[in-house]
């Protein structure tokens, strides 16, 4: 499942890169920090990026998950500190709602 989620995340980054002058590096994507001091997104763009991911997750797994919820934001270890952690968070959320793997 992690691989499918990763390809969704990469596709979303690619789509955003198309309209961005300063491209987000995707070569070492799992360690890419999304938000925070070393993050590639400001809050507003983070929300747009997460919306894209949510939309693709819905298409791929047939369920709605929220990546901008209180739960996501209040994690001790932020799911936005790296793509790896985001994938792990998505996996947990998908399991919770019983998505078809």
């Amino acid at each position, binding site marked *: 499942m992690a691989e499918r989620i990763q390809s969704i995340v990469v596709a979303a980054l690619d789509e955003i890169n198309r309209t961005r002058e300063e491209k987000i590096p995707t070569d070492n994507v799992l360690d890419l920090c999304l938000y925070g001091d070393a993050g590639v997104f400001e809050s507003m763009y983070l929300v747009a990026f997460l919306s894209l991911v949510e939309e693709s997750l819905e298409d791929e797994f047939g369920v709605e998950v929220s990546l901008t919820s209180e739960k996501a934001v*209040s994690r001790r270890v932020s799911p936005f500190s790296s793509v790896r952690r985001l994938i792990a968070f998505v996996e947990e959320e998908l399991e919770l709602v019983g998505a078809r793997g």
Partner: protein
Amino acid sequence: MRDELVRRFEDFGTWTALFDRGTPVTYADLLGRIRDIRERLARHGVVPGQAVIVHGDYSLDSVATLFALYLDRNVVVPVVTLTDKTLDTLVEHCRPGHLVRTTDAGIEVEELGRPDGDSGTDLGAGAAHGRLGDEEAGLVLLSSGSTGAPKVILHSLDALVGEKLEKRARRRPNALNILMVLMFDHIGGINSLLSTLLVGGTAVLPRHRTLDEICALIERHRILVLPTSPTFLNLIMVGDYHRTYDLSSLRLITYGTEPMSDELLQRVHRTFPGVRLLQTFGTSETGIATTTSESSSSTYFRISDANVEYRIVDGELHLRSRTQFLGYLNYDDDSLTEDRWFRTGDLVEEGADGYLRIKGRAKEVINVGGEKLLPLELESVLLTSPLVEDCVVYGKPNAITGQSVCVDIKPRGELTRADLRKHVVEFLAGKVEPFKVPSKINMVGAIAMSDRLKKVRSRPGAGGE
């Protein structure tokens, strides 16, 4: 004043007051029906001062019942869609004695039960309690907010009728015919009805308010005046109804109930070149104000009503009118200032010479991490895209920026969701600030319109009305 109303109806005599299901009804017929219904209500024990629910949409019977109750100094509560919840709210706060249902087979009068020990006939204990004079007829309207219980708004029907009676009666029949597009339980609908009948005009009553029916009625009755909303006008043009039906009789289109975008107004103006376009402005609380649009192609208007004062406080329009509501029966009057200015909740911009433009509702402001946006401004830009047929912008809560901008778009032509998103992002680049670019773009088959002819802007969990 009651005598004056009856005298006018008698004078209009054989003129046509209504077209009900295609059948003409003269003023004499209407008066006869009013008389019958007054007798019927008296037989059922309806007494002056009592609140009476009138359930039904426009028909000869509902209109006649409205006037019968006015003449008998009752409190009229028109309700088009009577749900159990609405009835509960009304029973609790208006203590209506009777319910009149207007059906195809005539009227049914039903006595409403009261809680044990409650024998009073006075209105509820809300802020408006005691504000209606003993000799005055009342009108109760419900606010159409979808969250919480609707606000029960008390008006003096005497004040509303009195204001219309100040206008001179027409000197000839068929001088004014108007299609009742707005609802029977809506301030705009009541206003149109009184404005028309008290001066001898003809009100054409629709049954279903479908676009087909409305346009067919305009064609058949050579309608001169069409009171409507921006969303409704857009649907007429998008569906090419103005080509299917002959709408050339129209002389005046008034639009209100929701803000009009410049883009849409230009399109209406091009589609109906000889028609005067006039913005109406009003609220359920303050009634409808007479306005003057800067021009038919301008969304700027001036409030030119001797009965209405206005002021702008922190960008919000405040109104005070002679015919404004007396108060709410179930809420505090927190929307009224101490000196009885009504805070409309509409954000306006003041242009040259006192012309105003509505920017949107204060509660529709989308706040993206402190940056603010009103749906209308983004909708206006999106509607200039050749790929956008209609759209609705709204905010969605999130835990990162507070709210994010979302849009539902009905595209023109076949597009995938990904294509549409790509188009919107590219189309908006450079036209609006980055925070206004929607983070979520949904493709929809139709933009929903409420029975108040407004775009449905609220979304589950999205807050707002």
